């Protein structure tokens, strides 16, 4: 049943957000601390666990895969509702801070990634649900 996959995804999402909120209130922050990341890890563990027991038929996987494939369209919709006008009205402080932060971070990323080891296997390239043209 395809809904099993979507339900599994939904449960992981909700538990993750719950734990994130709990973490946030425990350390006294008015924000969700890593809820989505926790949900992702739960889903990864659930997949590994269920697959090892043969409880993950392809219909169930499709219930998650559809939403993974909807990811880019959702991001486009997200872009279409950003407050671009406010961002452009921010003035020089906002602009210079943002440009400076992005440039410096890009250099830091380049530095770390070039210094790091080259990945030995390319298994991650296979098995994407959303093969775009």
């Amino acid at each position, binding site marked *: 049943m395809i809904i099993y996959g979507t339900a599994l*995804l*939904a449960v992981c*999402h909700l538990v*993750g957000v719950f734990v994130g909120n709990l*973490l946030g209130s425990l*350390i006294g*922050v*008015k*924000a*969700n*601390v890593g809820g*989505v*990341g926790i*949900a*992702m890890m739960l*889903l990864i563990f659930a*997949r590994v666990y269920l697959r090892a027991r043969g409880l993950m038929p392809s219909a169930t996987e499709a219930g998650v*895969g559809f939403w*993974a494939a*909807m*990811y*880019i*369209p*959702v*991001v*486009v*919709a*997200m*872009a*279409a*509702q*950003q*407050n*671009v*006008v*406010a*961002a452009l*009205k*921010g*003035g*020089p*402080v906002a*602009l*210079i*801070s*943002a440009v*400076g*932060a*992005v440039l*410096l*971070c*890009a250099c*830091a*990323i380049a530095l*770390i*990634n070039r210094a*790091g*080891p080259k990945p030995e296997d390319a298994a991650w390239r296979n098995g*994407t649900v959303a093969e*775009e043209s």
Partner: protein
Amino acid sequence: MDMIEQAIRENSLVGAFAFVGLVMWLSIHLSRRLTFGRVHGSAIAIVIGLALAYWGGIQTGGSKGIADLELFTGIGLMGGAMMRDFAIVATAFEVHVDEARRAGLIGAVALLLGTLIPFAVGASVAWSLGYTDAVAMTTIGAGAVTYIVGPVTGAAIGASSDLMALSIATGLIKAIMVMVFTPAAARFMGLDNPRAAMVFGGLAGTVSGVSAGLAATDRRLVPYGALVATFHTGLGCLMGPSVLFLATKAIVG
């Protein structure tokens, strides 16, 4: 025409699916015809989305881009935090556990640097442009981390509302820059494997910027970057009003 509008208004989410589908179709064709596939279709779609958001903001004066127009309220639902996070979690299904585990430590280091570097830049720029008190510097610096960390930090340390607006603007410009320029800078940043994507997720911050930037670069890298980036806002909200504010205060008095 009225009947069509009514149909879309009553089924706003369905209308959004159709509209975004159209934007994607257009983008993929533009990518093939105009750039011969060199610029990714998703990248073009995201830029079109941002342009529409600008147009919507000008039309309505609202803060939610095109989603403030009555006909496009469905876009607000489709691209809102709920659906965005649901789709991001779903991408975790494709994560190769070994890859993610191998890069765990460097991801955490990147996360810490991704909070400290933007904060330092934001606070220094604020200082050099005349915002010399600790509250203003911290609020703007936190905005350079993400546009959520900015106002959360500002509220916690008692910043004025125009300072908060400034810090939100800083974070928004950063997110938009990451969305637009990641594909172009991907080679420079060595963004071609899961480990690099996790470093990118930690350093570039903002879930929206990272997720859109990676989507436009290589769809398969998205879950690795997002896995780290989702901790970015939480860490920023934790450090902003506490360690970073105290450090700033200690420096400028």
